[in-house]
């Protein structure tokens, strides 16, 4: 929980304000109010929901061993450079690169440090063979990289040819792997005009200017280099990683897709914030979606220790940064947080998308409830998020209806960024926050020995259907540990539906589309999002769950170009693909 300014005021100040006054003992013998009665009422369930029943039946099983995925991200910590670079880690990406109908996984490799030199490490492209079996084909596919110290990978179909392309971020450069359609890629970032020599972290694909081709937003972090490498220490003076506040910001960039395999930098023309002083953007997460539901694509950026940005699109691709006045830039106390992961979802079922941000320790994770008219309010306190306390350093995150009860729950992977935190907890527990009917979230506890009851150095998180059963698996990347593949084997009594949209009049991935599932127990909004989480990419597929006793009555799809389609005949417990009807002009 985030206490008010006064209650968290340094206790030393309380002592020093009045040495005599506050330290006097032997005070009133008044024993005060009925403590037992007060305590008893605190254990009453809230809203009539018996304690412990929320999320009953949820079972998330770690099936990593079956997949054979042993590849893991290396950050170079063993090289003892103690660089802030090693604190970020890498993400995980779902991509059906060979269009065989099975989701594959791209895993950035990270890197290390030579003699005052940053070196890269090869990445992995885990091809899904079915039956939860994977094989690394990165070298064959031409995406193993190796020279670049990598962080994230983001999927977008830059030429709308049906074969997803990959944008890989990293230190000092980026890589654009153009899918050749035959299981191989060609690295073309220079030919494409994607010049970004900064330290890139997260990225998102989406058609910002509505020309039918996916554009690219790239977050850049801070100006660390071996020439700008201060020394920092931990609580016992051990050498440790420095915090971002010691560095200047690096501006983000937005590239518009020219539609011919090339891109142009429009950062200065469309209204991006491009300052480089310390208080500007230190981007670690970016998400594209129609946040204000006006039919165009907006951008939300999670910045580390500086205010987050909300860029609202005027429809033509011109962006206005309104994070502050829309109350999504800061936390409830008006402070900027160390924001890392993002997602967008309708937690309370009011058909308005809410923003969710995972933050640094001692900072509540931010749930920004959409109040309409583009206004948000920080609702972490109201929804019980602050009861998590300040112990977690949150990274990859996603909304997902894990228990198929019709409301979206929240997943977060956590892990500290420095080697010697005061709390002593470098590896931290991941979180499943179960949504209690859109009112509050409750942390789900798991039996000992399970993945969610074991601490990890978590970073990326993405969801997608690896198995092909229509339900989403959760893949979480770690530092110096193989990624975890978590299968949802909950015994929830609910029905499900998953939908993949294919755009025809706009960009193929249909980022920006909104889909509403109509059921007898209410409507559920889902949105196709570019980017999101932390340096990771989920499958471009939407997932719903709803109680068995309610009936699905239809789907309404609003495509990015404005076309609205109604679908009445939708089969339950099914995974479908909807293709946008061609607009004949």
């Amino acid at each position, binding site marked *: 929980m985030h206490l008010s300014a006064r209650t968290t005021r340094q206790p030393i100040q309380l002592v020093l304000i009045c040495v005599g006054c506050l330290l006097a003992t032997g005070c009133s013998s008044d024993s005060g109010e009925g403590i037992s009665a007060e305590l008893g009422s605190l254990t009453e369930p809230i809203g009539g929901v018996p304690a412990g029943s929320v999320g009953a039946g949820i079972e998330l099983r770690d099936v990593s061993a079956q997949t054979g995925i042993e590849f893991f991200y290396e950050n170079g910590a063993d090289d003892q450079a103690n660089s802030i670079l090693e604190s970020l880690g890498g993400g995980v990406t779902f991509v059906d690169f060979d269009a065989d109908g099975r989701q594959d996984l791209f895993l950035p490799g990270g890197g290390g440090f030579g003699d005052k030199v940053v070196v890269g490490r090869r990445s992995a492209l885990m091809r899904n063979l079915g039956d939860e079996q994977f094989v690394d084909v990165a070298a064959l596919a031409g995406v193993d990289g190796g020279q670049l110290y990598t962080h994230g990978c983001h999927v977008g179909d830059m030429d709308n040819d049906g074969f997803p392309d990959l944008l890989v971020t990293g230190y000092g450069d980026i890589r654009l792997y153009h899918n050749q359609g035959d299981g191989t890629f060609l690295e073309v970032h220079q030919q494409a005009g994607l010049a970004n020599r900064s330290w890139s972290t997260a990225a998102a694909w989406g058609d910002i200017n509505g020309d039918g081709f996916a554009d690219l937003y790239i977050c850049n972090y801070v100006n660390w280099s071996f020439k700008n490498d201060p020394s920092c220490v931990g609580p016992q003076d051990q050498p440790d990683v420095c915090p971002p506040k010691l560095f200047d910001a690096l501006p983000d960039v937005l590239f518009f897709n020219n539609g011919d395999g090339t891109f142009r930098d429009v950062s200065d023309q469309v209204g991006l914030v491009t300052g480089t002083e310390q208080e500007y953007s230190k981007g670690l997460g970016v998400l594209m979606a129609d946040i204000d539901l006006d039919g165009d694509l907006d951008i939300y950026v999670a910045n580390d220790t500086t205010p987050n940005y909300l860029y609202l699109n005027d429809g033509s691709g011109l962006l206005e940064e309104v994070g*502050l006045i829309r109350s999504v830039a800061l936390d409830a106390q008006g402070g900027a947080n160390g924001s890392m992961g993002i997602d967008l979802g309708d937690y309370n079922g009011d058909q308005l998308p809410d923003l969710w941000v995972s933050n640094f320790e001692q900072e509540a994770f931010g749930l920004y409830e959409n109040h309409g008219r583009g206004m948000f309010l920080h609702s972490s*306190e109201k929804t019980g998020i602050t009861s998590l306390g300040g112990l977690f350093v949150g990274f990859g995150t996603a909304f997902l209806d894990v228990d198929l009860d019709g409301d979206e729950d929240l997943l977060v992977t956590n892990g500290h960024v420095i080697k010697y935190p005061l709390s002593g907890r470098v590896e931290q527990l991941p979180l499943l926050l179960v949504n209690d009917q859109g009112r*509050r979230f409750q942390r789900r506890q798991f039996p000992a020995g399970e993945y969610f009851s074991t601490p990890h150095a978590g970073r990326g998180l993405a969801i997608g259907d690896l198995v092909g059963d229509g339900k989403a698996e959760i893949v979480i990347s770690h530092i110096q540990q193989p990624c975890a593949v978590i299968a949802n084997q909950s015994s929830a009594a609910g029905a499900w539906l998953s939908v993949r949209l294919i755009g025809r009049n706009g960009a193929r991935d249909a980022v920006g589309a909104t889909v509403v599932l109509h059921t007898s127990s209410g409507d559920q909004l889902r949105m196709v999002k570019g980017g999101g989480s932390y340096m990771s990419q989920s499958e471009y597929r939407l997932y719903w769950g709803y109680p068995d006793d309610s009936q699905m009555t239809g789907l309404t799809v609003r495509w990015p170009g404005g076309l609205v389609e109604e679908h009445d005949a939708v089969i339950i417990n099914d995974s479908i693909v909807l293709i946008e009807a061609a607009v004949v002009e």
Partner: protein
Amino acid sequence: MYNGRRTRPLKPDFMKRRKRKRRRRRSSRTVRIIVLVLLLLAGVFTSSWYMLQQTQRAMAKHDLEAAESWLQWSAWVPIRRGHQAFLRARLARRRADFYAMKRHLERAGELGYEVRLLEREKQLAMAQQGDVQILTTRFGPILKEADSDVLEVFEAFVIGLLHMRRYDGASELLVGWCENYPDDPFPRYLLGSVYQDQDRDQEAEALFREVLRLDPEHHQAAYSLGIVLIDQQKTAAAVELLIFAANKPELRADADLARSQCYRTLGRTKAAEQLLLSLVKETGDSAATVELAQIKLEAAEFQTVADLLEPVVEDHPELVNARYVYAQALRQLGDEETADHHFSLVIETNRQLAHANELAETLGSGPDSADQHLRVARIHLQYGSRAEGLQWLLRSYSVNKQHRPTVEELVLYYQQQSQRYPDVPDYQRTLDNFKNLLVQLGG
């Protein structure tokens, strides 16, 4: 024989006996009176000694109110005035009322109290205020001659080190103090506070629990333990402690505010709201008002939020959270221009305070660091709390008493304070002192 003159008749024997008896009675009465007087004097001396002993005992237990009572009683006894004055000075020092301390020490000196002890008390006062030179060079020598005042020395130096944010040094002293005095809750409380400040929650929790074991009525420890438990998500347990802590009037606002936040965390928003309404109504506490406003903001009662916070924002410009919540309410009410103005101030304030924190983290403690101390002070004075700003000004002064810009800033500060609070003579006295210093520095 009758000789024409009236003479006294011869006293018969019984008369002589009666006279002897009378003489005996008079002498025994005299003796009794003398004895009574002696007993009275002894009683007076004893009671004086006893009351002063009790005073010192109360101060050792940090019960300054009791110490003051005993001193007031001892004032009725016109002996050991010098010692009374000395103890008054010590009590004033404990209360950080250094002007009063100075007056009482002077009085004690006039009454012939031991000069060595008076000088030592002055040095303890300087240590307590964070005088770097005293802190770094005089601990050993003073402790060596401390006699029965060892704990006074420890306490003064620890508080001074904490003032100067020298937490390692303070911790070291406190650890030793705890080890040597296993039944003293005071150093445990201070050490717990240091650990709490450093986010070492488990260690802080253990110490606060130990304090409460030693002194179950230690309301401050109960409050601090409550906060530490909240930080560890032991919210329900924290509530119990906060209820107890609120029984102490000076802790009530803080404890009730923290309890309201616990209720919100536990989903009991109504209970939180009721508690805050009561607190705001009775005390007008600004932090409670902001907390209440946040609840109202979540409930979309934007006009109520604006009404609650307008005076808070005006009176407490340093409360960034108040201004931010206020700005959000204004925005929702459609007053975009005013909202934007406040949003901008929030950003600027955050930026400046972050900069102050960065400066503070790289501060040295030598005279050269006065400039940087002063920069931090000015940021807090302009954007943060005046109390914090004053702390930094005093630290700057402490590291370099010849630093003219610091003294100028102190003159300005106390000018403002004496204008704002003309009924507090200490502000004017302090202002005069710093003005004199400025003159000595050549201004």
